[in-house]
């Protein structure tokens, strides 16, 4: 091969192109390579030192949930045809991926009751940031009014990006577990670019989405802000969808839909909006068309929004998104189906309330709020949460997320967020109650002494 190139050595290829001063003249300081079996053994060993949802009874949630992923979805996501291609730049040989995007967009539009969806963004919190950027492009204003009920990671992510966008973030407190409507109305003014809230919110409470969007709209009159709702898609079989609550843009974390936990990623972010925002959407969008023989086909469309065409004028810088994870999402939604998503929602609803009733009946545990909750509930422990969790861990139970550890809010002291999935049965909930109750009691005793 060197002869064909006309060089005498591989070294020559580099010597002739890279200035000596910036050549690395030593070996990288990394361990030596290993045969496949040894790398596997090492990664197996690392995995062994993690406690997965398989090894403990876990009620962790707060944004990612241990839903059951049907086996066929793994198979599809492992298929070379879906796993290994690049973004479909050559539609003639990418119809599989493009059709999946089109079907995904349709499913997300149905879920959110909004007319347009893109083919995915990175994940939940950054999807909210993307919505804020869309609002900025739309109305050029610089204020972001954010409900304190949004996930703390979302709020932090919004702040990080807002600094770049040249926007400021104004947080609206909660009252009784949901966004304080008065404060919300008060915070929104003519400079408000977007008003964002979560449904259900971080504390598991179902917000009155209609009231929040109405308030946002009429408080600003003419200059109504873009109303953004961060949804938990798996609840949309039973919760009034954003498109039917006056919401302009719906974003959300898609992991619950057929994606594994993976310690937090990769998953996908969903992004849907009203028609008028179509040409300001971030990311890929697949569209239907026909080929020269009149055959139905799909292509990436409205690319004039995108960075590779519009460059500094693009509606977003996103390029690689989450196509494979979105495949998991649409395949999961097809698996649930029109009835399944309702049945599942009702099962989660019933179990969540059963869990709330059971837990709050325990001495030393009461509800953090009494709002309706559909798949996650917040209680307050009259004991140190970390200490209680440590006690539960000994019984191989993980009772949930320490709220204050995430929000840092004083009023959240003692808060525990308990997530319910279809994999947590009544028996599991009863075991949780028994373990958690005992741990709280023991901890209070220990402190009392």
């Amino acid at each position, binding site marked *: 091969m060197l002869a064909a190139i006309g060089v005498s050595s*591989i070294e020559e*290829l580099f010597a002739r192109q*890279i200035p000596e001063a910036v050549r*690395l003249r030593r070996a990288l300081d*990394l361990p030596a390579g290993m045969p*496949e079996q040894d*790398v596997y053994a090492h990664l197996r060993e*690392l995995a062994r*030192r993690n406690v*997965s949802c398989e090894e403990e009874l876990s009620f*962790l949630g707060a944004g990612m949930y241990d839903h059951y992923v049907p086996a*066929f979805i793994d198979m*599809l*996501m492992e298929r070379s*045809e*879906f*796993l*290994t291609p690049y973004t479909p730049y*050559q*539609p*003639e*040989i990418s119809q599989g991926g493009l*059709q999946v*995007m089109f*079907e995904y*967009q*349709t499913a997300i*539009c149905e*879920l959110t009751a909004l007319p*347009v969806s893109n083919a995915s963004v990175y994940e939940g919190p950054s999807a909210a940031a993307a919505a804020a950027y869309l609002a900025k492009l739309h109305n050029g204003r610089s204020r972001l009014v954010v409900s304190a009920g949004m*996930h703390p990671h979302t709020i932090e992510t919004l702040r990080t990006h807002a600094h*770049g966008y040249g926007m400021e973030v104004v947080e609206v407190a909660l009252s009784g577990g949901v966004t304080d409507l008065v404060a919300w109305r008060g915070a929104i003014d003519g400079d408000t670019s977007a008003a964002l809230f979560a449904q259900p919110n971080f504390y598991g409470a179902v917000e009155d989405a*209609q009231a929040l969007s109405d308030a946002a709209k009429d408080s600003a009159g003419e200059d109504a802000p873009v109303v953004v709702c961060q949804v938990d898609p798996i609840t949309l079989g*039973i*919760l009034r*969808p954003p498109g*039917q609550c006056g919401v302009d843009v719906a974003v959300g974390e898609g992991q619950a839909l057929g994606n*594994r936990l*993976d310690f*937090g*990623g*990769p998953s*996908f972010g969903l992004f849907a909006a009203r028609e008028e925002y*179509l040409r300001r959407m971030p990311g890929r969008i697949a*569209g*239907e068309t026909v080929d020269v023989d009149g055959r*139905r086909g799909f292509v990436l*469309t409205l690319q004039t929004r995108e*960075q*590779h065409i519009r*460059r*500094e004028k*693009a509606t977003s810088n*996103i390029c690689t998104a989450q196509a494979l*994870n979105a495949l998991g999402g649409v395949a999961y939604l*097809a698996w649930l189906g*029109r009835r*399944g998503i309702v049945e599942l929602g009702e099962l989660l609803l019933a179990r969540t309330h*059963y869990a709330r009733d059971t837990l709050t009946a325990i001495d030393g545990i009461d509800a953090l709020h009494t709002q309706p909750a559909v798949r996650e509930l917040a209680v307050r422990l009259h004991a140190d949460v970390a200490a209680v969790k440590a006690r539960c861990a000994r019984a191989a139970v*993980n009772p949930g997320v320490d709220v204050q550890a995430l929000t840092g809010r004083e009023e959240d002291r003692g808060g525990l967020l308990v997530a319910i999935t279809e994999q947590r049965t009544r028996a599991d909930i009863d075991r949780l109650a028994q373990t958690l109750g005992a741990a709280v009691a023991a901890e209070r005793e220990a402190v009392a002494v």
Partner: protein
Amino acid sequence: MSSPQASGGGATAETPLQRKRARTIFEQGAPGRRAFVCPEMDVPEVDPAQLLPEHLRRIDPPRLPEVSEPEIVRHYVSISKRNFDLDSGFYPLGSCTMKHNPRLHERAAALEGHARLHPLQESERAQGALELMWNLQNALAEISGLPHVSLQPSAGSHGELAGVLLTRAYHESRGERRMKVLTPDTAHGTNPATVTMAGLRVVKLATDAQGGIDIEDLRAKADGEVACLMLTNPNTLGIFDPNIEQIAAIVHDAGATLYYDGANLNAVMGLSRPGDMGFDIVHFNLHKSFTQPHGGGGPGSGPIAVSERIAPFLPVPVVTRREDGAFELDHDRPHSIGRLRGFHGNYGCFVRAYAYIRSLGAEGLRDASENAVLNANYLLARLRQADLGEGRRVEDLLPLAYGELCMHEFVLSGGPMKRELKLKTLDLAKRLLDFGFHPPTVYFPLLVDEALMVEPTETETRETLDAFAQAVAEILREAALEGPEIARNAPYTTPVRRLDEVAAAKHPVIRQAL
């Protein structure tokens, strides 16, 4: 292959895949059909209305498909076959580093301890995952020559955004407001797009005759308002900038930072390090240089590595190691720009990238880059020398846009081909589909007329490179002999043929009407 013209352009004798009109999952199934079996309602039945007031409840369910599991499987398996994939064919898509994706990585990432680990699991009970992230941070630091790493960004462009925000934070911490970011005209679209999103202004830099940055232009523009120069090196022409030291000096003298777009890192692993070139910030595309499969458009992962002066501003969290050897997530970094997303980044991609680094080791990574560059230069040579008859060679019609050699990829200009054969780069690309190859990147970088950007990667064999060079030559000969129509109407053998993109954009149908 006999001229498709003869047979009416291959439209006859369609394969079952071609003939079947694409049907979406929403066009299948029947009312009431289902795959999901709901676990039993094991808690006291409650009337949803009682738990969820009317105005919060959904009235009519989303019109999701009503299909059986066999239907879903058959649907997606069938349409998957309408995709071209890296496991089946050569995919020399420039700038995308379509290297082999080892299956070991999928096996390892699927282990319960990784795949079913919740991101909010206590650190003490996720030590394996944190150690993996720690090791990966260190490996990326060593590879880039920049000591501090954040694994958080979700992809390359997300890493770029982090990088520009870091630059802002750095300057702001020094009481400076610098609004300009220099980007060469060869830059990838995400660079300028990122600059705008980060609230700064793009200033374009010219490219010189060697394909590097025009030093004079840089000197002229590198003033006190410049926050940063974003550079890809080797750049999107596949050229390693010979003046990189000088460039770094100029930028630093101007008080600006130097950003390294790591999309082309596959050319220099173990051979040259951005940190040693003088870069302050680099992003990695784990889905390019480090084998995270592209998934048809993601997932990706775009960690960043930075120099000491940028370190204080890194996004949270970062993995740190306590004296007692235990690992933890550090969120408490007062100067941090904050979070870029939820949780800790795309851990699943970290597992794969880490498995790759441990499989290859120091030597293996260097060999990978050496072979990537060797393969690119070999393919370039084969292409240029390929004979077209009458003493003409491919390079007469598809000359190398810049330089003589290349790094891991190269860019040809289809200008002469277009003029002499009336064959556009697009037509060449489409005709390649009939030969079973994925075409190179086309019409990028923008400054090259009819650009064809070819990146073979190190995992391809010489036989494959030879076959590809032959195919290109055959297409050019075909056009010379039978005219450009054959290619202009190509492809013929794909599941669908050329699609009407104009109509798609004019009247967008982006969801199924139900």
